[in-house]
């Protein structure tokens, strides 16, 4: 089993964090101010896009300053009980063991308006009278729900770190993993992630794990996207989606066409849905999607595309019933597509021999290259006389004979026999 590199290489100390130096400085200053007495703003509100290091900054801060770190996901704060516990913790600066305490409330966006019994209002009440530093985290601080809470908080914005900084981090990771990665490849991954360090690290792992080298060619097929979700995120949404809606939505988020997305899903289903029943159901969903593709072809009724998408996304997502999610599994590039792009030269050679066969045999060059060439190879290998006769009859050139017989020596003997 592999570990996700985002976990393995999570920064432990503030010094390891990519970018946002100003924001981090501001946060340190505010934390230190607690030593001189309770500051005016008793909570810090960190906000910014996903994956730029907000949570990890608070963790590293607690680590660097030896504070007791209490982390909670804000969406748990829906019950009175949880709120009371939070209030209790917040009412003392020191912990039982004499150290200082810092409380993190993550994912404030997850709170839904008024229906939550505790909700934003209860959190605000606790912040007003807190005796220890509280850090709040959300993607946006300017949500109207937070307008009152905001006035009691020190607002600190986290921005997307520049690609160069992200690339440096990727370089450290790849060095540690023993991958020789060229600069262009890392820069490409960094740029594509649009400042989302977490997804950049995910991409690096997907592309580089187990490899000795990583070049620009290895990564360039990802194609540049304007911060459209990377194919890996979309696959995650489909293969681990819990509802039809979320899985179907994934199909709109990615800029590869439906057929290519289909290939990605088809390649990756077996590794991610390992329970035999789940796998069979997921493969069946793909097979039905494929039947609809056939129907589109036969009828030119492009409206059927919606059923293709239903089956290949929601159908696959809902097949997951028994498979347990365990650890991190690499997403793989569709092998079927790779097989096509590999060995272009050999295919060209096969096709040109196929074209010669076609002239004599009422069979397409394509089919001949697949179905007849394997037999020709045997004949050429075993029987120079027959080979010479066939080469003459098919009008093959020296190169073609060499390819079929697999050695220059033997080819020369055959060509001599041809006269």
């Amino acid at each position, binding site marked *: 089993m592999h570990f996700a590199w985002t976990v393995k290489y999570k920064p432990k100390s503030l010094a390891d964090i990519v970018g946002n130096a100003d924001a981090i400085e501001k946060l340190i200053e505010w934390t230190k101010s607690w030593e001189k007495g309770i500051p005016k703003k008793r909570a810090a509100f960190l906000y910014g896009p996903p994956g730029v290091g907000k949570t990890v900054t608070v963790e590293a801060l607690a680590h660097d300053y030896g504070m007791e770190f209490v982390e909670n996901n804000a969406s748990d704060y829906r019950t009175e009980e949880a709120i009371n516990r939070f209030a209790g913790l917040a009412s003392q600066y020191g912990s039982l063991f004499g150290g200082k305490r810092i409380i993190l409330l993550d994912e404030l966006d997850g709170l839904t308006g008024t229906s939550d019994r505790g909700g934003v209002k209860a959190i605000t009440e606790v912040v007003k009278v807190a005796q220890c530093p509280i850090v709040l985290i959300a993607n946006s601080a300017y949500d109207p729900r937070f307008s009152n809470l905001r006035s009691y908080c020190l607002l600190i914005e986290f921005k997307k770190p520049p690609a160069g900084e992200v690339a440096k981090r990727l370089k450290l990771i790849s060095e540690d993993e023993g991958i020789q990665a060229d600069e262009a490849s890392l820069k490409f991954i960094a740029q594509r992630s649009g400042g989302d360090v977490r997804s950049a690290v995910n991409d690096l792992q997907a592309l580089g794990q187990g490899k000795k080298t990583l070049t620009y060619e290895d990564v360039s097929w990802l194609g540049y996207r304007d911060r459209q979700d990377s194919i890996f995120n979309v696959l995650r949404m489909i293969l681990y989606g819990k509802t039809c809606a979320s899985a179907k939505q994934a199909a709109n988020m990615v800029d590869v066409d439906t057929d290519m997305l289909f290939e990605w899903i*088809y390649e990756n289903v077996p590794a991610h849905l390992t329970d*035999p029943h789940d*796998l069979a159901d997921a493969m069946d969903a793909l097979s039905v999607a494929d039947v609809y593709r056939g129907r589109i072809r036969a009828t030119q009724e492009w409206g059927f595309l919606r059923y293709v998408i239903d089956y290949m996304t929601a159908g696959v997502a809902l097949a997951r019933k028994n498979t347990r999610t365990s650890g991190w599994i690499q997403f793989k590039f569709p092998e079927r597509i790779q097989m096509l792009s590999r060995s272009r030269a050999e295919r060209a050679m096969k096709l040109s021999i196929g074209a010669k066969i076609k002239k004599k045999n009422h069979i*397409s060059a394509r089919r001949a290259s697949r179905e*007849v060439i394997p037999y020709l190879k045997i*004949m050429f290998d075993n029987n120079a006389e027959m080979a010479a006769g066939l080469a003459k009859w098919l009008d093959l050139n020296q190169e073609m004979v060499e390819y079929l017989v697999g050695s220059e020596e033997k080819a020369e003997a055959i060509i001599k026999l041809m006269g």
Partner: protein
Amino acid sequence: MSFEMWAEKYRPKKLSDIVDQKDIVERLKSFTKSRNVPHCIFAGPPGTGKTTAALCLARDLYGDVYREHMMELNASDERGIDVVRETVKTFARVKSIGEIPFKIMILDEADNMTSDAQQALRRTMERYTETCRFIMCANYSGRIIEPIQSRCAPFRFTYLPREAHDSYLIEMAEKEKVKLSSEGLDAIFEICGGDLRRAINTLQSAASLGKPVDAKVIYSITGKASPADVQKMIKVAMGGDFMEARKQLRDMIQKYGVAGSDVIRQIHTELFRAELPEQWKIKLADIVGEADFRLVEGADEEIQLSALLARLVEAGCDLRSAR
């Protein structure tokens, strides 16, 4: 022993040379008698005589100069719309000189044409019916667009029965002075099913060794040409390793060009031979049948077959837990 491709050398020249597909041949003969041919679809697995039947029909109709009245186009190689617009149209619209007022266009592997090209073809077929009749050869008629299907007389070719297969190969072996044992013949049929082109290619490559052709020779050479070991693949799948089974399937289809319908047929045969509880056999037959049907409907071979493999993985797992 002659040094051309036997599959071509021994291709039947006249409809009466074809010893199998009797119903089809009878219907085609009635066309030559009445000197009228409708548009046709010849559908069926590879190596069952579709192209041969079309060529024989043309020769019977026009005699030795048949090449002047017939054109053969391979849709696999030239499948775009431009070919239909240019080549096909140019051929179709010019009147034939001779007693038969129409020409024949053989579109081989027509199921590989793009649907745009098929749409264009549909109009060409309609417009020039007077001057040209089309014979479309396809593995899967489901991949031909419906408007074309409805304009064509359908002919379904099936794998060659054992007797026809044997009679072709035995005659060929005699003419080529190759010793072919009956075990060798069994082995060829087992490996190639009724795909005659593959059977002949197998025989010729076996003969190239210059030894009497027995089962051992056949197995040794087909191992090289197409390791289409369906039995092994089923075992791997039932044992629970889907990825490996899919890899084997992919190699069969992509590298060695084994037809999907052929794999299905072999899986079907193997299932009833395998040591499985009786109820399971019929349950699995239903699954195989569904995959077969989806293929005929025009779906992708690898996708359909790997979905079938996933069901075999599931069955293998259920069987183990039932024991």
